[in-house]
């Protein structure tokens, strides 16, 4: 089945926006039939992606800009696209840190990957900086068109 947009939000790339983003993703996931635990994991992954934009994409460079978050449903689950307008980064340089190294910080990318089934940086459209696609598949009996 084709992707269907469930919710979309364009907000300033600031820490104050994260609560609103989480609320939208959580409600979209619950409306799609996800459990609270499943929704929490997707919300956390998206939150980590957006805070990377706030902290590193904009904050580290003294920049400000918007973040666009779009939630789509397909036959397997939900995908969330996070688009920023910061300086493009090379996805090959984005790596989670070694968890054996106990220190504050650096967990965001690890959590994004651990909590989703797809975590892929896509080619940004003209004018955008970076586009991250996070997808999480629902259990088979929760997918659209399938019933137990």
């Amino acid at each position, binding site marked *: 089945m084709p992707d269907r947009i469930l919710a979309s939000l364009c907000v300033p790339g600031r*820490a104050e926006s994260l*609560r609103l983003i989480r609320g939208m993703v959580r409600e979209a996931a619950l409306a799609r039939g996800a459990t609270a635990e499943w929704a929490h994991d997707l919300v956390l992954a998206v939150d*980590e992606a957006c805070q990377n934009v706030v902290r590193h994409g904009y904050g580290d460079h003294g920049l400000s800009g918007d973040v666009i978050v779009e939630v789509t449903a397909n036959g397997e689950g939900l995908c969330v696209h996070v688009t920023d307008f910061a300086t493009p980064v090379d996805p090959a340089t984005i790596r989670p840190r070694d*968890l054996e190294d106990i220190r504050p910080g650096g967990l965001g990318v690890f*959590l994004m990957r651990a909590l989703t089934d797809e975590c892929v940086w896509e080619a940004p459209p003209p004018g955008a900086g970076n586009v991250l696609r996070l997808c999480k598949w629902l259990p088979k009996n929760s997918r659209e068109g399938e019933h137990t």
Partner: protein
Amino acid sequence: MSVSVSNRGGAHIVTLAGEIDLQTSPQVRDAVLDSLRQGGAVVIDMGGISYIDSSGVASLVEGFQVARRQGVAFILAAVSPAAMRVLQLARLDKVFAFQPDVDTALAEGI
């Protein structure tokens, strides 16, 4: 999100409630480090936390490291399943000391 600090049995109790994220985690960090600066054990009451992200976890890890250097106890109490899931994913469930509630932490943990 709310943060409050009290003293019981010679320990600092940092009580957290609500959502800990990039906006609110600096308050957590400040409360934890301020308590550690005063000396003595620190118990983090996490029973009221409904959400925690990596920045909140980072504040706890920083507190843990300072406490270890000082040789004082640093205990997480009443950790919710959602918060524990994040700590387990980050493999921190083997690093922190946990107790089911503050009373048990004060009686047995410090």
